[in-house]
């Protein structure tokens, strides 16, 4: 019986997290357009429903009714598979994100932990899946049989190799501090007020994580694979209809997961700012912090132009990786000296 209850709990959690994530992704697109609009001193979409709140649904309906083209020279199986890979990778990261502490269902002694899978190698799992997401982009561009698509894929591959190294090294500092790969443990170590958050102990790692993360999900200062100006949308040039929408959603889902991981690793996850504010459920703290990070992602997109390809490579190899290594060495030294 216990097993059945456990199964039911997991299924309910999966459905709720998936639905919630999709909703956040849908409204992320709206938020991006609204915030970018206000940054450019205009309103953004505000015709569809009050304040444009129904815009994501109208976009979805539009995407459904578009013609679904597969180019004649495309590798059809891979072409169809690529957006799915991107989407699955983006969603499955959320399986290990702890978005709240635990609570007991009233009237029973059944404890519900607010995360789908509490695995010990959570961080390793995240980095495994994150790089999988890039394969969707690489395969998508390559299989469409278009030269711009291929260029986009090549850039995506090069960028992934350059920035994932720095991303991984930057995270190791957090690992040294928390001495655990389990995300729940990492959050618990940061409990008890904002001064215990990892961002104060690992500020360089936090900044490196944000920069490399943006490069990893191909967001604006680093959106080389889909550079509109030179590559005419790059890897997704041949995609239309729901396949394009899948890529689009995957991009935003990646952004949300990147933000969620940043909150978990550096901003104390579901922990409140002050211990006295613990009466507010951890879930809301998590969402609030995630919102700030997501706002930053949009904000920086409205600020920075795209880097040139050679600048990105130079920046990745000559600045970020050495910085990440220095940060790692110093962290390790300090921790070992403290005993």
């Amino acid at each position, binding site marked *: 019986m216990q097993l059945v209850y456990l199964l039911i709990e997991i299924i309910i959690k999966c459905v709720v997290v998936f639905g919630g994530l999709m909703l956040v992704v849908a409204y992320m697109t709206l938020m991006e357009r609204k*915030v970018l*609009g*206000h*940054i*450019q*001193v*205009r*309103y953004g979409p505000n015709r569809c429903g009050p304040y444009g709140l129904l815009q994501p649904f109208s976009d979805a309906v539009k995407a459904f009714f578009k013609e679904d083209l597969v180019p004649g020279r495309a590798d059809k199986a891979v072409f169809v598979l690529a957006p799915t890979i991107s989407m699955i990778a983006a969603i499955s990261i959320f399986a290990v994100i702890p978005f709240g502490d635990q609570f007991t269902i009233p009237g029973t002694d059944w404890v519900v932990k607010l995360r789908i899978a509490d695995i010990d190698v959570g961080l390793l799992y995240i980095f495994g899946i994150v790089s999988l997401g890039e394969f969707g982009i690489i395969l998508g561009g390559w299989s469409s049989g278009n030269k711009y698509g291929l260029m986009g894929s090549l850039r995506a591959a090069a960028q992934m190799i350059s920035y994932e190294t720095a991303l991984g090294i930057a995270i190791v500092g957090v690992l040294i501090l928390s001495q655990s790969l389990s995300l729940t443990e990492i959050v618990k170590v940061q409990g008890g007020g904002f001064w215990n958050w990892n961002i104060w102990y690992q500020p360089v790692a936090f900044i490196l994580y944000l920069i490399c993360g943006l490069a990893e999900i191909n967001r604006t200062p680093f959106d080389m694979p889909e550079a509109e100006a030179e590559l005419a949308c790059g890897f997704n040039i041949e995609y239309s209809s729901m396949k394009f929408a899948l890529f689009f959603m995957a991009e935003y889902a990646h952004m949300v997961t990147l933000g969620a991981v940043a909150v978990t690793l550096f901003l104390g996850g579901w922990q409140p700012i002050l211990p006295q504010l613990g009466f507010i459920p951890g879930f809301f703290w998590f969402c609030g912090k995630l919102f700030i990070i997501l706002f930053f992602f949009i*904000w*920086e997109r*409205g*600020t*920075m132009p795209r880097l040139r390809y050679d600048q990105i490579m130079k920046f990745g190899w000559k600045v970020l990786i050495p910085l990440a290594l220095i940060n790692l060495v110093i962290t390790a030294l300090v921790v070992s000296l403290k005993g």
Partner: protein
Amino acid sequence: MIIPILKGLALTLNRFFSKPITVQYPEEKVPPAKRWRGVQYFERDDRGKIKCVACGLCMIVCPSQCISIETAEDEEGRRYPLTYELDASRCIFCGFCEEACPVKAIFMGKTYEWVESRRKPLLMDIEKLLEEKKVNP
């Protein structure tokens, strides 16, 4: 490198909190310029009759030839337009008719929104041109 980025971020955040300059068009409208040339209207004289004497100068000067006039004379021997037709679908709003008019009968109005799904309603006759006066005080 870092300080310019921070400056840029501060600028965009400042812009984010400023009021958008967008005019929400169908609800809010920008008033047309002082010398805006919109849809024409007819002016009446002191006795409430149309000023037009059907001299045909506007018809001659019109580059797109959208004006056609049939002349008539009343019992006092005064010429007046029996029919005056202005095809607004062909009019290019150059304002030559207003300039050419010797008796200041036709003027360019302010109306700039006029959409029809058929051509017929775009043919302006005398009544329509007088009607148009009401939206151009």
